[in-house]
């Protein structure tokens, strides 16, 4: 789709005026909503003719010259379909963009409402222009193209933990609740249709089965609508997962009911046997969907095990396998939505462990992008289809439907909650019930299902569609718009925005084990016990098969820690190389502050940093920076098929390795001497603190500073000093974590250099390099060791102007 737009744009600029004009006009249509009918068309057959005529009329001056070789040709037909699809996508994106430019509007009205309105406008324009409105919300298009991205996005990022914890409740709402809704609405509708003897309207002709079919279509809560509204109101996790989970899982019920009633409506009679078959069919549809999804999920995870050499196509596997899961499930009339959810949820933990960080980001962005475009398109199409649809407005039917929908939902939720609360430990309060009932939005799935109905079997199809659209509009507009103020009014607990901290992660795990342990002591096997069993099975067998290499053995906590560390490092890089502290650690507290105090330093006087002449400090800083720049540039070679060597991966692995070494080293040091931990950082340098924090030890530069001295006078400190110095991780880690790849390389260069020069030094992670160039450049300098300190500070603080001196000559690295 994007390629259509992309390829067209340059052509428009380079070629004929008319074509350019056309493009301009189309953009104008979208931006201003002018009366021109050109933009809105997606089905090739209808629009095509008119467009071609248009050009024929505009073109003759250019094109109708002779039979000579056509220098310029216009073949709109050739690109029509992709072009129009691109235009729709463009329209959707522009609309989304536009709404967020007007914050006041989007804070009052939910996006879904605005989009439907836009759809209505566009549809109206098309109609005004005398065109036939394309059947945009065609069921095939909807179910095969628009729906899967949204569901995959939901499934892949499904918060597994709350979902599993509330699975019983969700299933209750999704299965029993939907069944109740379908039969209640269907049954009462039928009753209402029968009790108007005086009224000569077509409602009399309604039979029970079409009513029930309609009930089953209209009763399902729509995931797309729920997502769109709930994402804006930031409700707490429990309510979100209850409503959203219900909307996802009720798909199986809807599918079965739909097919069941559709089938029987043709046949006319239903026997008990059919009912039993229906129940079995429900189980098959639901479990089959989950099974298909899980199989593809495992396949996807297994495939991602081997992608370490072709990182570029990693994200593709996720998308393709999921889509295939969806299609395979649909093929057997299983629940495609459940298959997608299962696929996403199953593959995610393993895939994430296997793929690179960049691929993960790609997956995240693609899913979000696709789902948000799909969502936007669905709502716009809903609007267009409303204008288009052959409507059969029947006051009684529509009003009764809307009222029944509301009543059924409320009764269903209250009744079910009463039952569920007998079993739940965290009970659902009245407020919760209200929000669950109120959040039961209907949406495009219902409409598409209604659209699928066969006109021959269901003469009331148009009335159904009208009623469905009314219900959808009612829920999306009235409920969607009022739910936000209501949430505020009722003071329903909101979601906390805070990121997950490492402490929380530790305690989540701790709590899991604790509760499992307590359950074991109590001697009964609750769900913690089974979860623990499952986890252990997962760790022991499944992970080994699906995750490549070392990471399969990595406990969750460590994985989390690595992820967090990486995030911080990336944040640091993005914030400009250490100018700003990462938000996770927004303070001046450093490792040193939490380490147990060691005896005071031997020479407290040396703690203060000696002053360097301002000019020199600047000079050194520049040198270091340009070196950094150079190494960084070296990595930026572009290749179409392989990404640039993933800096975070490689650098990060390296970093971890070095860190491990450092930890060992620290242990050694600890046994040796007290003189090691001299707090030396000037309080004004936050990066230093950061460095110290990242290195996991309190480092100071005194040992390094004293290296010279240690060579001269071999006092008992000497050895330990050296140890300290070669363990000085300040610079290394500080560089490595914010600017991973480069700095690691830089580090290595440094190290090589220093090894050349000072053979007698240890091999560790020394901070030698700065001292070497300094010494070489100004050999006579007596306080070179003190400069070294300064240098380190410079190095660890590239400053905000890191980019300005690329052309600086750097005399100090060979």
């Amino acid at each position, binding site marked *: 789709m994007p390629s259509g737009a992309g390829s067209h744009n340059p052509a428009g600029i380079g070629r004929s005026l008319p074509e350019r004009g056309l493009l301009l006009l189309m953009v104008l249509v979208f931006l201003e909503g002018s009366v021109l009918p050109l933009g809105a068309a997606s089905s090739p057959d209808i629009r095509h003719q008119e467009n071609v005529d248009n050009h024929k009329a505009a073109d003759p001056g250019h094109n109708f010259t002779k039979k000579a070789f056509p220098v310029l040709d216009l073949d709109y037909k050739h690109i029509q379909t992709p072009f129009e699809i691109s235009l729709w996508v463009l329209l959707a994106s522009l609309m989304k963009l536009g709404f967020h430019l007007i914050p006041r509007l989007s804070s009052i009205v939910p996006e879904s409402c605005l989009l439907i309105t836009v759809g209505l406008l566009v549809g109206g324009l098309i109609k005004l222009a005398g065109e036939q409105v394309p059947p945009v919300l065609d069921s095939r298009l909807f179910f095969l193209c628009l729906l899967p991205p949204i569901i995959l996005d939901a499934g892949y990022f499904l918060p597994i933990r709350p979902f599993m914890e509330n699975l019983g409740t969700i299933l209750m709402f999704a299965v029993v609740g939907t069944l109740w809704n379908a039969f209640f609405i269907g049954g009462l509708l039928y009753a209402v249709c029968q009790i108007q003897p005086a009224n000569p309207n077509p409602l009399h002709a309604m039979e029970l089965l079409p009513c029930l079919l309609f009930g089953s279509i209209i009763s399902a809560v729509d995931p797309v609508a729920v997502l769109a509204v709930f994402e804006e109101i930031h409700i707490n996790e429990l309510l979100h997962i209850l409503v959203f989970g219900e909307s996802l899982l009720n798909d199986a019920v809807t599918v079965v009911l739909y097919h069941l009633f559709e089938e029987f409506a043709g046949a006319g009679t239903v026997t008990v046997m059919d009912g039993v078959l229906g129940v079995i069919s429900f189980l098959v549809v639901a479990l089959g969907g989950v099974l298909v999804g899980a199989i593809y999920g495992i396949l996807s995870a297994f495939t991602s095990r081997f992608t370490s050499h072709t990182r570029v196509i990693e994200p593709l596997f996720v998308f393709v396998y999921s889509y295939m899961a969806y299609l395979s499930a649909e093929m057997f009339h299983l629940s495609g939505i459940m298959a997608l959810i299962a696929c996403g949820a199953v593959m995610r933990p393993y895939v994430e462990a296997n793929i690179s960080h960049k691929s993960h980001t790609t997956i995240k962005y693609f899913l979000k992008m696709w789902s948000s475009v799909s969502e936007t398109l669905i709502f716009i199409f809903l609007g267009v289809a409303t204008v288009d649809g052959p409507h059969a407005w029947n006051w009684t039917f529509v009003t009764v439907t809307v009222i029944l929908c509301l009543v059924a939902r409320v009764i269903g939720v209250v009744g079910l909650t009463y039952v569920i609360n007998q079993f739940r430990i965290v009970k659902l309060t009245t407020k919760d019930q209200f929000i669950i009932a109120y959040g039961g939005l209907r949406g495009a799935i219902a409409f598409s299902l209604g659209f699928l109905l066969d006109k021959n079997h269901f003469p009331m199809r148009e009335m159904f569609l009208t009623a469905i659209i009314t219900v959808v509009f009612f829920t999306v507009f009235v409920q969607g718009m009022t739910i936000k103020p209501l949430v505020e009014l009722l003071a329903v607990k909101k979601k906390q925005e805070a990121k997950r901290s490492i402490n929380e992660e530790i305690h989540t795990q*701790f709590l899991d084990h604790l509760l499992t342990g307590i359950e074991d002591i109590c001697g009964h096997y609750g769900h913690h016990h089974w979860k623990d069993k499952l986890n*252990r099975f997962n760790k022991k067998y499944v992970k080994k098969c699906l995750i490549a290499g070392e990471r399969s053995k990595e406990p969750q906590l460590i994985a989390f820690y690595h992820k967090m*560390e990486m995030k911080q490092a990336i944040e640091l890089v993005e914030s400009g190389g250490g100018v700003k502290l990462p938000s996770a650690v927004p303070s001046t*507290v450093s490792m040193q502050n*939490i380490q147990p105090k060691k005896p005071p330093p031997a020479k407290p006087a040396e703690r203060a940093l000696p002053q360097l002449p301002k000019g020199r400090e600047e000079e050194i800083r520049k040198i270091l920076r340009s070196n950094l720049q150079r190494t960084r540039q070296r990595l930026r070679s572009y290749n179409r098929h392989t990404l640039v060597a993933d800096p975070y991966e490689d650098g990060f692995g390296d970093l971890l390795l070095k860190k491990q070494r450092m930890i060992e080293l620290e242990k050694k040091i600890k046994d040796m001497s007290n003189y090691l931990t001299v707090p030396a950082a000037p309080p004004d340098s936050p990066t230093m603190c950061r460095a110290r924090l990242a290195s996991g030890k309190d480092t100071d530069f005194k040992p390094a500073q004293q290296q010279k001295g240690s060579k001269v006078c071999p006092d008992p400190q000497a050895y330990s000093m050296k140890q300290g110095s070669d363990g000085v991780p300040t610079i290394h880690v500080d560089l490595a974590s914010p600017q991973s790849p480069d700095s690691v390389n830089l580090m290595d260069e440094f190290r090589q250099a220093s090894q050349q020069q000072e053979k007698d030094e240890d091999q560790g992670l020394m901070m030698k390099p700065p001292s070497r160039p300094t010494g070489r450049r100004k050999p006579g300098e007596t306080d070179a060791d003190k400069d070294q300190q300064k240098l380190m500070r410079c190095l660890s603080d590239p400053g905000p102007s890191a980019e300005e001196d690329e052309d600086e000559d750097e005399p100090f690295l060979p």
Partner: protein
Amino acid sequence: MGASQTRTESKYQDLADRTGFSPEQIKNLHKRFQHLSGNEDTISRANLNSIPALANNPIKKQIIEAFFDKRNQHQDEVGSFGEIGFEQFLMVMSHFRPPTLKTTEEEKEALRKEKLRFLFNMHDTDNDGTITLEEYRKVVEELLSKSGAIGLEAAKAIADAAMLEVASTNVPHMAPDDFYEGITFEHFEQILQGLEMESRMHIRFLDVDTTTMRCGKSTS
């Protein structure tokens, strides 16, 4: 136990008032207690140690220790018991009671504090009111103790990072010479705010006797 039926009944009622368990739950737990202790009046560490299901729990030691911790008995005592009776056992268990629909906000707050205090006490092994870095490292090490060699090294780094996080969220500005002694209870509360302990730290205590249920199943 020579107690007569009525005496045990009234004893159950008394315990129920103090711990908040229902008499049925207490009866269940008592059965389990007797099973664990081998029909003794008290239970020892060895008894708990021998529970097979606990064998794989990485924090088994802490869990067992928590049962013998006097601080968890609400009686302002410190130190640890050698053996505990049923009452103490129940007291410890009462920390894992779920909140009910009727709990008010204040009660919830108290419940949360109580649960957090329990956790805090598990970490604060020397009872000095703070979780020091050493103690915290120990906790993480135990957590990762089942994951082999990588665990130990990473544990330290994780504990350090976690400690740093606590320090930086609670005392945002520290001079380099300042020393953060450890996590106090207030800070502990602060950092675990997001976890909603009051609704999470609980298990389901059975109202019905499982053993009789099993019997019922076999007979019916």
